[in-house]
Each structure stands twice: as structure tokens, then as C-alpha cells.
């Protein structure tokens, strides 16, 4: 029997059977031993997902490999990794079953919500892969929110849901702030740069501690003279804290920019999850 077998991914398929007289035996063999090209039992997969039986869920999908079209298996795997949060594997299988995955609106919306707060590089990969016109208003809204987070100054906050507008306004405000302006403000009045960055309490603490260091340095210089070791110690302490306050204010503006963005995206994720979130299956 000369059977030329060619492998397509995980499933074996007979391409040609050259020897005609063995064909009958081959079909008898297939009838008894080859498992029938199965269909995925989606209600069972749903059940596995709901009960969170990850082991059984994975085994089931693996078992279907070779029995079902590869596209369906990749789609199921993508959904599996979306549920059990493995972003890189999810993206790997998503790209292999893109059209099928996009047609599942629940899963597609869930993935869009999920990637709002994920690692920046993977987030970029995901949102760049989303087609511009999906036909889903939910997806469009989420994507608008994501692009607002990337281009805050170019986005008008009113296009976002009311619940997210204040967070976005805070984020947008923080983006227009300049680290050097904060440093200059802190040089003029200790801690003022922190106030400018949006850290009110840090301003109070910095201002009063600087004031105290200043007064105690002044007192020691006045009573002991500038060359006295204690005066030098007091002055250096004041100097170090003063320089740290300037540099800290500079840094705070940069940190606040990142923090407001992350908080905006976290709140957006919560909002969309609450309003658009549906079971994955």
C-alpha cells in the first residue's frame, strides 16, 4: 500500500491514494479506526469555562486538535488564554484565528476591555490589530477610550462616557504640565512644584520641613557663626533637602503623568466591564 500522507499542522490528511486496489481496505480501516471529524461541543466548553476547570478545559481543546478545523481550535485556545490571562499566548492564537475571533462579539469586546490595562507593548499590538470598522459600537467606544489615552491632547473629553470624563480631564491636565516648571517653582518656594504636579499634601510637608531646616540653620549661623561645624552641618542638611525637593518636584510631574494615565485606564476598564461585560461563552 503506497499512501502518500501529508501533514497539515496537527491533523493528518490523506492527499492521494495511488494504489486503487487498496482503496476499499483503506476506507474500511477509516470507518473503524479513524475518529470521526468531530464538532466542538460549545455548550460543554462553556460549562468548563464557567466552573473554571482549567485543566479539563485545556485537555478538551487539545483533544479536539486534528479532529476539527485548525481555525476553530486556535479560536478556542485564544479564548482559553484570554480567560486564564496569558496575554502573549492569547495574541498568538488570536492572530491565527482572527476572523473567527472577531465574529464572536462577546469575546472580542472582552478582549478589548481586557487590554485596556495590560502591558504597554502587548496593548499596542492588540489595539493596532483591531480593524477600524468592526461594526460593533461597544468596540468602537473602547477603542476611542484607548486612543484618548494615547493622544490626550488631541482628544475632546466630551466624546467619552460621563463617568470617565473627570478622570480623563485630570489625565489631560497632567499631560500639559512641564517638569522644568515644577522644578523652578520648587526652587522659588520649596514644595510648590509638588502642588503644581497635583500633590497637595506633599507640598505642605515639604514646605514646613524646609522651613524648619531653614530656621534652625539660620539660628545656628546667627548664634555660632557660619564656620562653626554645627552650622555647616545644618546648612548642608538644608541644602540636601532643598536640592532633593527641586529634583523631586521635577520627577513628580513625570510620575503623575504616568499615574493619571494608568488610573484613567483602570477606571475605564471597570466602567466598560460593568456596562459591556458579558460572559465569555
Amino acid at each position: 500500500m503506497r499512501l502518500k500522507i501529508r501533514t497539515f499542522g496537527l491533523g493528518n490528511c490523506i492527499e492521494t491514494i495511488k494504489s486503487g486496489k487498496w482503496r476499499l481496505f483503506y476506507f474500511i480501516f477509516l470507518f473503524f479506526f479513524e475518529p470521526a471529524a468531530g464538532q466542538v461541543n460549545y455548550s460543554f466548553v462553556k460549562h468548563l469555562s464557567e466552573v473554571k476547570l482549567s485543566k479539563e478545559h485545556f485537555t478538551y481543546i487539545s483533544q479536539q486538535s486534528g479532529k476539527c478545523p485548525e481555525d476553530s481550535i486556535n479560536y478556542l485556545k485564544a479564548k482559553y488564554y484570554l480567560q486564564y490571562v496569558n496575554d502573549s499566548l492569547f495574541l498568538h492564537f488570536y492572530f491565527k484565528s482572527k476572523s473567527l475571533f472577531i465574529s464572536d462579539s462577546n469575546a472580542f469586546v472582552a478582549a478589548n476591555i481586557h487590554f485596556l490595562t495590560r502591558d504597554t507593548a502587548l496593548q499596542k499590538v492588540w489595539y493596532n490589530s483591531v480593524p477600524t470598522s468592526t461594526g460593533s459600537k461597544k468596540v468602537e467606544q473602547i477603542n476611542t477610550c484607548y486612543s484618548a489615552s494615547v493622544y490626550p491632547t488631541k482628544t475632546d473629553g466630551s466624546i467619552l462616557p460621563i463617568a470617565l470624563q473627570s478622570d480623563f480631564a485630570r489625565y489631560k491636565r497632567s499631560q500639559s504640565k512641564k517638569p522644568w516648571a515644577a522644578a523652578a517653582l520648587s526652587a522659588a518656594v520649596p514644595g510648590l512644584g509638588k502642588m503644581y504636579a497635583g500633590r497637595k499634601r506633599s507640598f505642605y510637608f515639604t514646605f514646613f520641613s524646609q522651613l524648619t531646616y531653614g530656621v534652625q540653620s539660620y539660628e545656628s549661623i546667627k548664634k555660632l557663626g557660619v564656620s562653626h561645624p554645627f552650622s555647616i552641618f545644618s546648612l548642608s542638611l538644608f541644602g540636601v533637602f532643598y536640592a532633593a525637593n527641586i529634583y523631586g518636584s521635577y520627577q513628580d510631574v513625570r510620575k503623575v503623568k504616568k499615574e493619571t494615565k494608568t488610573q484613567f485606564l483602570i477606571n475605564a476598564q471597570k466602567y466598560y466591564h460593568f456596562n459591556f461585560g458579558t460572559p465569555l461563552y
Partner: protein
Amino acid sequence: MLKNIIILISALLCTEKVFSQNEFSQHLLMLEEKAFLCTSDTLRNDFYLQKFDLYVQHNKPTNEAMLEARRIDYHLFRDTASMIRFLWNASVTSQLTNSVNPAAHYYSSYQEINPDSSVEAYLLGSLIYMDFDSAVARSFVNRLVIKDKSFACVSCLQEVANYSRKHKGLYLISSALVPGLGSALNGNVLKGTTSLLINSLAVYAVYVLIQSNLYFNAFFWGGAFLTKFYIGNIKLTGSLFDQKEERKKNKLATNCELMLSGVLKQHPIFYR
């Protein structure tokens, strides 16, 4: 020939786990599928039990096994033997996965349905109830001792649970009166001496500043550091006291664990 046999045996030994793992997952899935397709609650319950038993057979007291145990309604079992066996295995699994409340629940149900006075049952009871209800644990230990005096060592469980050092307040007051005294009395002489030294230096520094008419500096350094050092020394005594108590408890626990391991070697607890 011999060489081939050796290779075959080594290959079998090495790959045994991989294959059995695969088979295990397949079996779990098969049972889940059967349970899913099942329309009768009783039958479905039986499949869940089979899944749990699979974890038991493979000696896998994992959280997944606990998830299966929680899905089982043991009142639906048709025979008492299955119910008893499940309750015993579920109590062992719960104890091994540190699920205190389910362990106590399963064990009490087990004893209610099948009053078991075996050594293993009492041993398991004393282990489960040690974290849950010390009085019940004590009663199990007492019953074990009545059975055999050699089980007296199991009472170390109570010693560990009830151990606490006394007179903490006394140490704290000593540190409040003389900085570092409480720590020194606790056995940390070096730390106590450091406390005394630092506090004395801080007082002296404030005194020198006042002498130099640096009142603001005296107020600032005294307020910021002297109070921190003084309160810190009292807190330090408290934390050193607690640390010593924890160390002692740990020592008792280690000794008790050794004794308990010895007892468990003689009277091992198995899944049923």
C-alpha cells in the same frame, strides 16, 4: 540485549510520570463530560465523586481536588460506605490544602455518620481541630492517650497552640523607666545597651544645644529625635519580646512536628 533492556527500563521510569499525567487529565475530562451529559443529579454526583477519587488515587491533594470535593453533595450518595469514604478523603484533602473550616466540617460529618474510634481517626481529628477548636483537639488527644500511653507526645500540639510568654508589660515599663532595660532583660543586651547609649546621647545633645542658646534647634532635634528614640526603645522591647515568643513557639513546633511525624510513621493516615 542487556543494554537495550536497561535503556527500556530507564525510559519507562523517566516517562512514566508524563504518560500517567496525560492519562489522568484525559480521565478527568471524560468524567466531566459524562457528568455534563447526565440528567440525573445522583448520577452526576457519582461522576463528581469519581473525579475526586481520581485525585485521591493519584495522591494529589490540590486545590483542584478541593474544588471537586466542594461540588459533591454527599447526601445524594446511594450507599453509606461511599459517603463515609468521601468524607474521610475530603477531610484529609482539606487539611492538606489548609482549608480549616471545610476540614472540620467534613470530619465532624464523618464522625456523625460513622463514629470512628480508630487511632488514625483520632489523630486526624486532633490535627484538624488544632487550628479550629483547641478544646475538641484536646479531647481527641486525651482519647488517644487513654488508648495508648505512647500517644502522650501528641499533647505537644496543645503546648504549641497555648504557648505564650508572660509579663510583657513588665518589660515595657522597664524600658520606659531606663531605656534599653527591657530589651536587656529580654536577653538582647547589645540592643538594650545601644538604646541606652542613643537615648543618653540624644539627651546630652539637646542639653548642649540649650546651653548654646540654640533653643529652636534644641526644640527641633529634641522633638524629632529624642521622642523617636525614646518611644522607639519601648516599641523595640515589645517587638523583641514578640520575636522571642515566636522563636520559642517555632522551636516547640519543630520538635512537635518531629514527634508527630514519628507517630504518623507508626500509624500512617491513608486515603480510603
